[in-house]
């Protein structure tokens, strides 16, 4: 547990330093999902050491809300997919660490491009269907923003998943209640996302503190236990955007804005180095 907490703090530092260096990127949602991705890659997923695109006989993860690439890149690097020093190249010309994740540059750990929102659930379903055809019993995980659910393709995918009994998928929704233009409830209120998933035939697991490592472990373990039951599984992960940096929390202002030098210093002071900076 201490190890996971230390890793999370280091991932926060990576996120902050990456976006600060290029003065662009999306720290808010990245910080909000740091605990989740750390837990997913460290303890929940059954992963092969060597990256192969086809991912036979291992769990897969798809990031649909691609703008939180900083946390994705950090967790991939710290899970051994590529050298952590490559985080230095985030958003730079000729980098494999593009602004939004892509397979185009051959970065290990990434299986689909994302960034244009709403497409990841369909892709995850296709990968889940392929696993069934291959008699591969591993699970497909995906992560989506709550604002992202405003894209209609998600609802096509949700309909399909339950209609076709896709029960080897766990789709997690990052419920941080915020999007670029403000609170999700102000931009386009969606009502109860839980009710919507349930009425579409999904099993829903709620993680009420999505920034608490133990809660994530418990919730994801429960979600795993619900797979192979003829129904798709959804995790509603309530997170705090900007978590771990006091001035980035309780606001949507840091959705897509980088800290300046002083702000970085303050943010890093709140998250002292644990496993070593890149």
């Amino acid at each position, binding site marked *: 547990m201490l190890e996971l907490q230390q890793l999370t703090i280091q991932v926060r530092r990576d996120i902050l330093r990456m976006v600060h260096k290029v003065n662009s990127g999306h720290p808010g949602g990245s910080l909000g999902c740091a605990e989740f991705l750390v837990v997913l890659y460290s303890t929940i997923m059954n992963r092969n050491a060597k990256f192969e*695109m*086809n*991912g*036979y006989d291992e769990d*897969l993860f*798809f990031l649909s809300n691609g703008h939180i690439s900083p946390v994705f890149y950090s967790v991939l690097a710290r899970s051994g997919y590529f050298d952590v020093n490559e985080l230095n190249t985030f958003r730079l010309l000729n980098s494999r660490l593009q602004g939004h994740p*892509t*397979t*185009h540059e051959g970065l290990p750990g990434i*299986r*689909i*491009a*994302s*960034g*244009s929102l709403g*497409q*990841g*659930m*369909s*892709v*995850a*379903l*296709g*990968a*889940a*269907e*392929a*696993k069934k*055809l*291959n008699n*591969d019993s591993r699970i497909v995980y995906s992560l989506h923003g709550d604002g992202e659910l405003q894209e*209609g*393709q998600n609802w*096509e*995918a949700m*309909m*399909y998943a339950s*209609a*076709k009994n896709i029960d080897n998928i766990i789709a997690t929704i990052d419920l941080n209640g915020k999007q670029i233009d403000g609170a999700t409830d102000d931009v386009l209120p969606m009502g109860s996302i839980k009710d919507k998933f349930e009425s579409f035939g999904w099993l829903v697991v709620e993680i009420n503190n999505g920034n608490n490592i133990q809660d994530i472990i418990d919730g994801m373990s429960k979600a795993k236990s619900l797979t192979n039951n003829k129904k798709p599984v959804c995790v509603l992960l309530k997170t705090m955007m900007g978590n771990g940096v006091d001035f980035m929390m309780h606001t949507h202002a840091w959705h897509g804005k980088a800290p300046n030098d002083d702000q970085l210093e303050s943010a890093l002071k709140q998250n002292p180095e644990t496993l070593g900076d890149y």
Partner: protein
Amino acid sequence: MKKYTYTEKKDTRSGFGDGLAELGRANPNVVALCADLIGSLKMNQFIDENPERFFQVGIAEANMMGIAAGLTIGGKIPFTGTFANFSTGRVYDQIRQSIAYSNKNVKICASHAGLTLGEDGATHQILEDIGLMKMLPGMVVINTCDYNQTKAATIAIASYEGPVYLRFGRPAVPIFTAEDQVFEIGKAVNLTEGNDVTIVATGHLVWEALKASEILLEKGISAEVINIHTIKPLDKNSILESVRKTGCLVSAEEHNHLGGLGESIARVLALEHPTPQEFVATNDTFGESGTPAQLMEKYGLNADSIVEKVEKVLKRK
């Protein structure tokens, strides 16, 4: 001049359906998806023989493209089937990000392309799809001319690794290419030899080009007819070799003149061998309801239109 005849007419979409069925038997990784148009796409045989490898997604084309992209990750070779309009314009961003940019091995198979779906009108006709798809980096774009060629192309693209757009149509058209043809992606097929003009045609316009060449012969004009089934990558050497001999060219396609085959040829000519060219294509317009023959006549996409454009280009030599 070599003369082409036919004994049977058949729709190109049946060539797709029969090719897919053959693939289903030969390659266990081939899977198919459809968005509520199984009958129109002639996918029944594949589905009957391989129910576990078929995915009916309902009227949800965006989801279909994403699922297809995901299936490739598990080593599958997905063939998606719906009308050309719903295979391209409706799902452009899904294709762009999840398939083309992600370099996924998806075969986007599109029926009812162009005007010749007829009476349904402009909402279902698409004259912009070649342009949309050829602009996507890495996308192969194929438009086949008859049943045999469509069947051969369907089988051939399964062996090619990467995204492909395969465009075909609804009406029954003459079968004039060989049943046992070898389909080579990116390789033009020279149908007739001629010295006065090069006619480069794709899709349903290939047969019209052959008819035009016979009318032209009676007028003492010898036309070289080239069938371009692969618009991207374009076989520029075949085109250049021909125009170096004939000195002028007419392109013919069931598509808008903006973004189509003709424009791709014009670029090659402009860069490598400036040559007078005329375009048989629609003139930046939507289609409308009507029979296929009526529409092809009204929009200038038949043998007579090709003859007219040949006579025009010859004066520009």
